[in-house]
């Protein structure tokens, strides 16, 4: 029997297709620009070249910035998972006075324009006489990234069945063992999901980095922005493609190492 396709189904798929098109079309345009030989955006493309990728990798400023961005993002991922997960545990379990206010406080970096956070940190660093070290940049990114980990971990903790911990304790496990063998594996999907957000937020971070980078120590988004002011050619598109591929690679790597699939099942 032939199944009748209703208006609702057509509208549903149509809307999904439109959203997907809206989300992916910038990437498609950038990828075309990255392999098109013309030094400007032209459609349809007039040929195919890897010259822009060669230009990107031959430019030491780009390569250095790419590595710096990657290193900073990895450091931010680790730090924000540690800080965010412990903060979320304290907020969910600690029965702290002013818990709501504390949660709002931890989330506040997301509500402030990031450029103000960058400017404020820049002033603090200069007033404290510490200049603009790389660890200062990492701290700046971490401030922005931690709320993501807190939010995703709190979401997991809200549905956490505490009887599992009680059962483990009744069977003789100490608090440390309960945490590492029961609590942590169960909250892990939330922590990892937050960590991935943290990595991406750091890797693409522009407003905070703008104030905290130093000459010869600029992150990729800052280098790209400055490059764009003077040379708007396909190297920018190639850099974007490398950046997207790298971010995707890290997500896949995390999935492979820690198991993001657990989150998808969750």
């Amino acid at each position: 029997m032939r199944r009748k396709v209703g208006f609702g189904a057509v509208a549903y798929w149509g809307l999904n297709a439109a959203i997907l098109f809206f989300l992916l079309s910038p990437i498609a345009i950038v990828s075309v620009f990255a392999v098109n030989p013309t030094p400007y955006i032209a459609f349809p493309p007039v040929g195919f070249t890897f010259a822009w990728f060669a230009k990107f990798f031959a430019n030491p400023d780009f390569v250095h910035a790419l590595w710096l961005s990657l290193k900073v993002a990895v450091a931010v991922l680790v730090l924000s998972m540690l800080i965010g997960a412990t903060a979320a545990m304290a907020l969910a379990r600690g029965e702290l006075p002013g818990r709501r206010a504390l949660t709002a406080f931890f989330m506040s970096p997301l509500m402030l324009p990031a450029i103000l956070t960058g400017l404020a940190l820049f002033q603090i660093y200069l007033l404290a006489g510490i200049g603009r070290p790389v660890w200062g940049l990492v701290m700046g990114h971490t401030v922005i990234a931690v709320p993501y980990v807190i939010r995703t971990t709190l979401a997991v903790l809200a549905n956490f069945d505490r009887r599992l911990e009680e059962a483990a304790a009744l069977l003789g496990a100490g608090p440390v063992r309960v945490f590492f063998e029961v609590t942590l594996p169960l909250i892990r999907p939330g922590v990892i999901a937050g960590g991935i957000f943290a990595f991406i937020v750091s890797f693409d971070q522009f407003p905070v980095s703008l104030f905290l980078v130093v000459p010869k120590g600029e992150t990729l988004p800052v280098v790209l922005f400055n490059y764009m002011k003077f040379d708007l050619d396909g190297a920018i598109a190639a850099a974007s493609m490398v950046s997207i591929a790298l971010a995707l690679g890290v997500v896949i790597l995390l999935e492979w190492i820690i198991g993001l699939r657990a989150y998808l099942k969750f």
Partner: protein
Amino acid sequence: MRTSQPTRRQVLRAGAASAAMLAAPAVLHAQTSTLKITTWGGKWGEIMKGKVLPAFEKEFKCAVEADQAFPYLPKLQASPRTDPIYDVLHSNSNELWQAVELGMVERKITTKEVPNIADVYPYAVSDKIVGVSIFTSAIGLGLRTDKGLAPPTSWNDLAAQALAGQRGGYLVPVNALGQAHLMMLGKIHGTGFEDLDAAYKALAALKPIKLFDFTGQMEKALLSGEVIMGVIHDSGIFRYDGQNQPIEFAAPKEGVLALEQVLNVTPGSKVKELAFAYIDYMLRPSVQKELAEGVWYSPSNKTVKLDAKYDAKLFNTEAKVAQLLQVPWQWYNARKDEIDARVQRILKG
């Protein structure tokens, strides 16, 4: 047991050695002074980092920290006045005027601090400049040569009906070329650079117009044919010389606008002498020639001898320099918010 008494010579030698040891940090400091500057990216940045700055570091036995990451002014403003983040600010004239109003740069630089100022064209140190202009570009009109257009002779040619939707300008609130062009419209259609009513009316007549943030975007729009005539500085066109691109620069008869590259020293700099030495170095004929021919900027130093193809196009003689118009940035900056709001309303949609 016999003990030997130190001789007078030994005592003096030991004293000298001790003094040298005590002075060593100061000497070391002098040798490793760091000069913090701002500079552009792109081809300019390549030449600076590749040749100009290393040669300066070698000659003056110092390190140069060159910041290419915008925005310079907010960073300078946020740093302590007594220990500013930059010793030398390189920017366009509009930004230097903002900086001087905030007390973040010196008002004037003279030959006393920078001897090479004696050789610059008067525009480089005119009352429209805060500091010294080391180079300038000329803002005029860029056009496609393959679209059957007659080269424009006047700024008014940009308003031609045939160019509707294919002419290009800038987002006035964020771009100095857009701001200078607006003032030019006031001069052509009204009583002068400060005639805003005439400027607004002339700007509205340019609609529909494609607007860009940066000159780099305008260059690409001209190269792609998205724009067939637009406001641009000469170096943005000349840099494609020899690449067989169908674009050309035209200097309107009413004059071209100066887009000066200005250097100035911050009052709180801890290495002021080095900062002035850097400006002097940037005005040296050899450095001026290197950069002028690398990025097609017109040198401020009158004694610079350019190669024939650059000499033919750049503004490097008294007669050519006389065509450069300098706009009143101090006046403009004082009204910027009001102008931005009005321009946004005019160009909305």
